[in-house]
Every structure is written in C-alpha cells, then in structure tokens.
C-alpha cells in the first residue's frame, strides 16, 4: 500500500486507538514523512466527562494520540473540525432519526470530515496524502486506484468508506489493509505503543454515554414527534400499544409484543408522519427490491442489468443482486433472494468481488414476500 520508492509527506488521522497508532507507525517505518492529526469533533465540556474519556475521540484519545506521535517522533496536531462535523455528521444524524430512519454517522464522518476536511488541512502543511487505520486495501496497480475489502474479513471496514470522494482515492493510504487485528495488536505491543491494549471503541463518538435518545432530546425539542408517544400498530393497522417516540426504533429490530404469540415480531416500518411504528412477523421483514439514494461511486457505475453484491449492514454477508434501474436520485436493486431488515437510512454498499464500487443510503424497500 505504501511501498513506494518516493517517500511522501502523509497526514495520518490518529484517534488515539490502537489501529490508527499502528497505521502511523507503519508509515514511519516505511520511511514516509508522517504528520499525526486528531480531530476535535465536538465540544466535550457539556457531556458526561467520565463517559467521554472512554471513547477514542474523547480528550483521552487526543492525549493518547499525542503520546504515540511523540514516541514515533512525528509532529501531532489537534484540529478543531467541530463546525464541519456538526454540519455534516451530527445535524444529519439528528435529521435522519427525526425522519424515522437509522443513520450511519461513521460513514458520514468518513465521507466528509475524516478524509476530505483533514486532507484540506494537510495541504496547508504540505502533505501529499492522508492515511487512516481502517482495515481496507487500495490496489494502485491499474489505471485507477481500486478500494478492496480488508484482508481480515472479521475487521473489514469497507462498509464505512463508500462515501469517500473518488478523486481523493489516489491520495489515500490504508496501511492496515493487509493485516489482521491480532497482527496489529502484536505490532503495537512490539513497538511499545501505549495504545496496544486499548479496548475497541463501540459507541458513537459524540454520544459517549451510548444513550442516543438523550442526545436527540438535547438536539431536538423534547416535544419533537420523534420523541413523542405514538401507536404501535401491526401490519394490518391494528393498534397494539403505545411507544415513547419512534426514534427509539430501528427497522428489523426484534420487538417483544405480548399477547401469547409464539413467534417474535419485528419492527417493519417507521411512519414518521403519523408517528406509527409498524410491527409484524419476520417474513414480512423480507424485501426483494431496494431503492438506494445519495449515491457515491468509487468505480464506474454499473449499467442496468449488471450483477453485483451489496452489503446492508456492517459485518453482514454480501447479498447478490442486480441493478434494476437507474433513477434520478439513485438506483433500484433487485435482490436475488429476499433479505430481512433492510433498514432505511443505513448504508448500502456495492461490491464487485472484493472491490468497493460505491454505495448509497437505503431509501425504501418493497416486494416483501407475503
């Protein structure tokens, strides 16, 4: 990935976690002129301080990233990207939940903040490229760089990177793409990095408590429909009960509904306009047609009729499908086999074999096999 003859000046996004620490170390080892950078994405002072220190992006993350950079002998800067991050990630996160969808804020950050906005700053420092600790590979052997899944299939993070600006690809470096997590931890230990044994971060960085409903309540009015009670109805429209705000639900989520049913029921749909959460048996969750919007392509778009694989959740298996049609604001896909829990708002990533072709956001689903 970085085995080029000419050393480059590369800005590496360092969260303070083990992955980006090792990524920085590998670039230094490869002889590049490396500059570490940590984004300050939002103001932590108003948050639960104890909780914020637990996550990668908290102030402890900044301290750890700086410590690793000092050990590696590279400069490290903290960039305040709060304005951009709020606009491109947090506002979108809130708007999506308000509309009854389930967003991927990490995708939004990768598509906008982490690479594009950091690279802009890197340019001011004379950097030629930007690197991160994502488990994904870049194949530079052909005419255009191709993004490939990470070698470690259990860590592959290509799902989160479909939204990168394509023209940025040739500027990117992913030093961990050929490594497994175990190898990365081993490298960190051998290098004596302070972050070697750090736990994985799980929460959304700007919701360090993990309670996104509280976060939404602070961003939206507490009286917002997304946080107000509404009806839980079944697929035939019968009211089964009440809920305390549809933002607490995700399509595909298993919903315990009383009444002595033998099979579990699932959230089928969130109707923001009427505040209804529709539930039903699992087979109604299955969809065959998926409409995807807000597309981004890292490779030439496949024409209608093309076969490709899609991934609709992080770590979920690839699903074979074909491009049914290109529509003005996206495309429709026909799944070969119906799939459950195709969740509006989530990313749908397009693959051809190992290559990430692009992706978009799931708009709607239909063709349930009932």
């Amino acid at each position: 990935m970085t085995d080029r003859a000419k050393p480059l000046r590369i800005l590496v996004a360092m969260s303070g976690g083990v992955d980006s620490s090792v990524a920085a170390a590998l670039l230094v080892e490869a002889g590049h002129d490396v500059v570490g950078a940590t984004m300050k994405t939002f103001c932590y002072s108003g948050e639960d301080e104890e909780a914020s220190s637990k996550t990668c992006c908290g102030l402890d993350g900044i301290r750890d990233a700086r410590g690793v950079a000092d050990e590696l002998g590279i400069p490290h800067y903290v960039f305040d990207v709060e304005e951009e991050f709020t606009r491109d990630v947090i506002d979108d996160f809130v708007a999506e939940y308000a509309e009854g969808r389930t967003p991927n804020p990490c995708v939004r950050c990768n598509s906008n903040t982490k690479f594009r906005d950091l690279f802009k700053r890197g340019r001011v420092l004379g950097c030629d490229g930007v690197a991160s600790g994502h488990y994904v590979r870049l194949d530079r052997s052909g005419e255009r760089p191709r993004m490939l899944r990470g070698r470690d299939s259990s860590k592959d993070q290509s799902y989160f990177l479909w939204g990168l600006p394509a023209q940025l690809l040739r500027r990117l470096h992913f030093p961990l793409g050929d490594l497994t997590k175990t190898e990365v931890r081993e490298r960190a230990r051998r290098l004596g990095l302070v972050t070697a044994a750090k736990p994985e971060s799980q929460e959304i960085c700007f919701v360090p408590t993990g309670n996104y409903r509280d976060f939404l309540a602070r961003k939206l009015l507490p009286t917002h429909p997304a946080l107000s009670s509404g009806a839980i109805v079944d697929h035939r429209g019968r009211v089964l009960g009440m809920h305390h705000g549809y933002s607490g639900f995700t399509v595909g989520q298993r919903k315990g509904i009383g009444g002595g049913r033998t099979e579990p029921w699932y959230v089928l749909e969130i109707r923001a306009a009427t505040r209804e959460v529709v539930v039903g048996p699992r087979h109604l969750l299955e969809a065959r047609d998926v409409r995807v919007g807000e597309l981004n392509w890292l490779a030439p778009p496949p024409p209608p009729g093309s076969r490709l694989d899609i991934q609709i959740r992080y770590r979920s298996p690839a699903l074979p499908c074909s491009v049914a049609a290109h529509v003005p604001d996206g495309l429709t896909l026909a799944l070969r086999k119906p799939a459950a829990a195709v969740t509006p708002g989530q990313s749908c990533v397009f693959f051809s074999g190992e290559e990430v072709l692009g992706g978009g956001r799931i708009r709607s689903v239909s063709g349930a096999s009932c």
Partner: protein
Amino acid sequence: MQGIAEPIYLDHAATTPVRAEVIAAMSRCHAEDFGNPSSGHSWGRRARRRLERARASAATALGIPAAHVFFTRGGTESDNLAVLGRARHAIARGTGAPLVVTSSIEHPAVFEAAEQAAGEGARHAVIGFSNGVLDLDALKAAARERPAVVSCMWVNNEVGLELPMADISEVCRDHDVVLHSDAVQAVGKVPLALRDNPVDLLTVTGHKIHGPTGTGALIATDPGGLQPLHFGGGQERGVRPGTEDVAGAVGLAEALRLAVEEVEAESTRLRAIRDTVQARLAARVPDLRINGEGLPRAPHILSLGIPGADSDTLLAALDAQGIAASGGSACASGSSAPSRTLATLYPGETAATLRLSFGHLNRARQVDRIVDSVATAIERTREFARQ
C-alpha cells in the same frame, strides 16, 4: 521534519530555556549542597545557607525585604495561594461572604482560584475593560466593599497588555485593600518599581525568565493573612510547607537577578524586533489586527487577530516551517475554550489568534524569515478556509 531551515522559537511567553548561569548555580546545589535545610548537621546548614542567600538575592532583585519572599513550586501555586489563601483566611474569620476581585483578563491560575473561592463561600467580582482600559471606577466601587483580595496581573500573558499598576495600587492603598499581582510575564520585560507601585502579594516564576520550571515565589508583605494550601511542615514559615527545593530557589533567584539586571537592554532589544515584525506583517497581510495596538504593551508579545483563518491549522502550518508559536496561550491549546482576554478586548470577534512571543532565542536577523513564514502560513490557512 525534513529539510526545514533553522527552527525559530517564538513562544517565550509559554516557557524559556534555562540559561547557563542558572544551570551552573543549580548544579552545585544538586551535587554538593544537597542537604535538607531543616537538618541540623553540616549538610543541612550548607543547604540552609544557600536557600537564605537565594531568598536575599531574589529580594534584592525585586527591591523588597528578604522576609517577604516565600518560595513556591511555580506561578500557578503562587497565584492560587494568594487568591485562595486570602479568601479562605477571610472565610475562616466568618464575617459574611468575603469578596474576591479580579480583572476579567486574569490567567486561569488566578481566575479559576477566584471561582473556587466563590464555590467555597466567597463572592467573585470581575472588573471589566472599556476600550482596552481597566474600569478603574468599577475597581474603586469594589474596593469600597473591602474585598479580601484584589488581583490584577501586571502584564497579560495573551496580548501583552500592561495593566495600570500605579493606579490600581493607589486605589487599593486608598481603600486599605490587599492587592495581588501576577507578574510572571512582567519580570524582566518591564521595570516593576515596587517602591512606586506597592503591592501586598506578587507572583513570580522561574521558567518564564530562563530559570527552572516548577519554581516560583509569592512575595507577601503580610503572610499572616494567608491560609496555606498545603499542610505538613513549617517550611517557608508555614506558608508553603514541604522540604524546600534549594536548587530551584537558587535557580529562580539567579534568573530573577539577571532578568532584572538586563531588563532595560533586553526590553529595548525585544521591542525593536517585535515592532519591526509587527509593522512588516501589518504592511504585508491584509485584514490583520494587532491585538492591544495603541494600548500599553510589554515588549515581548505580539498577538495577532486573523479573520478568515483557524488557529489550529495556522499553528500547524507554522510548525511545519519550523516556527514555534501559540494561539491565545499555550495553556489553552488543545482545548478550544474561548479566551477571556480576547473576549474582553474584542467582544464578539471570532478571528483566529496567533501569539508570537520573543526572548533570548531571537535575533534581529531572524525578522525576515519570521515575517515571510507567518505571512505565508496565514495566506495558506486563509486559502484553505475559503475552500
């Protein structure tokens, strides 16, 4: 960093390298006169002699009695001791909620100590500015309430603004109020003339004047009015218990002596460099604000207000060119807490701040590169912000 020209240090207001004379004086303490000054044996006696000579030397440098010098472990500790020590003393005497008065542009070591006092039962009154000038009428009004302490810094650390200490001192004397001043940025940069501008409490520190980090002193005319922040021994007459750092005291005293001895020549030299950089940047960079321009300023600080840029990127760009500077102040970098000083002087303005602070490591021949590097970094950072 590869292939950059000679690095230039423009962050003397953050800290300074220890000068050779100081290192020489200290190393003798470390190696030979290492005893505990409280011990009765010959090692203790030697250490005690070194400590008391350092006290006398520091006192001479400041033109005050040696008995007023209390060694501490730094500027923050001295500031905390002055403000919180006075407030707690007053709270302990139990005559209502005592008042602590500070200017609105104090260093956090003073301001946060005053806030802490407020949390413990005192009241914190903040004196503002009007067009960059301390509101003396407000100070007088506050002084009439007989505060436990008034704290006004001699020279502001972010902008270099000199506060009108003669006037402040007069107000406090007229109202018989204890005055503290944080003078860490003033020593060696402006003449203190404590005889003309008497204060009751004064903070000095070593590392801003080419002395060792972790050394400082609180000058106190009436230590009885201070409640100590530490407990456990009678050192420094109980004002600052703990085994004395003899080498540190010696280093601080030597740095103080030299800084005061050289203040006239050094301030003239630094003012010439600072003013040249300022004039040339102002001529070259559009929309540049010189923070504190037209107001009395110490000679070593140049604070620039730069609309259309962000200071993180600007500082990184400068660092990439080998120029060490800081934003508002080094303490605040990494935290994007808005600066109280700049909010006071330029309310509502959001320009990035760049602080260049000059000192021993700077020479007139560096001016060309400083101007070039700073101007280029500002241009690039603004260009990036427009994207």
